[in-house]
C-alpha cells in the first residue's frame, strides 16, 4: 500500500488520443491539495500510516477537538481526514502538501467513493430481474416471482434477492488509468467512470496489484 490523496469528482468529458485520434471518455477529478496531518509510527501507534486532510473550511465548521488535532500539524481547518497504510513513513513529514503530481500520466490507480444512492429500489433496478409482460391481460409487471419452495423448507433462504436500499455504498473501482495530470491546478483526468455524482468525495490511490511485490 502507498499513500494516495482525496479529491472531488468534477464531471466527465472526452479527450482525443493524439496518435490514433480515438476519443477517450474521461472523468475530471480535483485531486488535492492535501495536507499531511498525522504520521503514525510503530512506536506510538503500533502500525505505520499517513493521515491526510482535504478541503479547507471555515474554522467554525469544525469542533474544538478537531481543530486541536489539526493544530499539531499547523494545518488549516480541513473537512475530511483519511489514513493510508504505508511502510515508508520516513519519506513524509507533518504539514507537507500532496497534490495531483503524486501520479504520472499512464499510471494505474484505485478510486473509491460512495455510489449514487437510489433509495428503496425494486427488483429490476437492484438485481437486474426481468420484467413481466405489460400487455395481453398480464398484471405481473415488476413483481418478483417465486421466492422459493413451499412447506419444505417453509422459509425464504437468507440472501434471497429482494427489493431494498440500493446505492450509497462505498465502492472501489480498481486499475483505472490516469490520462492526464495538471499538477498546477491539481486536476486529474481518469479514463472511465468513477462512483458518485459530480461533487462527490473520492480517494485516489496507486493501484493495488494482487500478487505483485
Amino acid at each position, binding site marked *: 500500500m502507498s499513500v494516495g490523496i482525496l479529491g472531488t469528482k*468534477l*464531471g466527465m*468529458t*472526452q*479527450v*482525443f488520443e*493524439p496518435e490514433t*485520434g480515438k*476519443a477517450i471518455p474521461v472523468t*475530471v477529478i*480535483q485531486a488535492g491539495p492535501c495536507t499531511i496531518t498525522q504520521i503514525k509510527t510503530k512506536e506510538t501507534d503500533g502500525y505505520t500510516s499517513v493521515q491526510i486532510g482535504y478541503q479547507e473550511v471555515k474554522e467554525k465548521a469544525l469542533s474544538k477537538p478537531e481543530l486541536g488535532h489539526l493544530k499539531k500539524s499547523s494545518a488549516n481547518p480541513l473537512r475530511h481526514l483519511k489514513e493510508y497504510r504505508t511502510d515508508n513513513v520516513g519519506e513524509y513529514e507533518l504539514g507537507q502538501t500532496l497534490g495531483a503530481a503524486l501520479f504520472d500520466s499512464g499510471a494505474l490507480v484505485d478510486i473509491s467513493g460512495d455510489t449514487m444512492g437510489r433509495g428503496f429500489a425494486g427488483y429490476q433496478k437492484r438485481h437486474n430481474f426481468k420484467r413481466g409482460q405489460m400487455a395481453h391481460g398480464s398484471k405481473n409487471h415488476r413483481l418478483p416471482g417465486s421466492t422459493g419452495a413451499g412447506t419444505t423448507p417453509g422459509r425464504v433462504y437468507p440472501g434471497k434477492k429482494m427489493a431494498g436500499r440500493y446505492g450509497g455504498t462505498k465502492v472501489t473501482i480498481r486499475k483505472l488509468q490516469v490520462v*492526464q495530470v495538471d499538477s498546477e*491546478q491539481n*486536476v486529474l*483526468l481518469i479514463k472511465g467512470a468513477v462512483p458518485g455524482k*459530480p*461533487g462527490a468525495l473520492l480517494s485516489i490511490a496507486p493501484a493495488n496489484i494482487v500478487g505483485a511485490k
Partner: protein
Amino acid sequence: MNAEAIIRSIEAKHIKSDLPQIYVGDSVEVGVRIKEGTKERIQPYRGTVIAMRNGGINETITVRRIFQGVGVERVFLIHSPIVAHIKIERRGKVRRAKLYYLRDRVGKATRIKQRFDRS
C-alpha cells in the same frame, strides 16, 4: 475555478477553431486521416450532411453518399484529429433538421436544391 470552467478549459485544447459553419443539407468533403503501416494519408469523403448533433467537443455530423449503388453514412466527430479538414462544396436548401427521408429515395429524388445566400 468552478467545475464547469475546469472541464471547459480541458475541452478547449481539443476543440478546433478553424472549422467552417456547417448546415444540414450541405455537400461537404471530409478529409479522413488513414494510417497504412507507417504512412499517413488523407482520404477525401464526399457526401451530404443529413444530420448534425451539437455537443461541444462531442459535436458530430452524419454524411451520406451513394457508393457503387449502396448508401453509405458516416458519422464524424468533427473535433477529432482523424478529421483533417472539412470543405463546404455546395450549400443546400432544406426545410428539415434531419434529412432521414433521403434514405428512402434513390436517384434524382435525392437531389437537394442549392442555396446561394450562405457563403
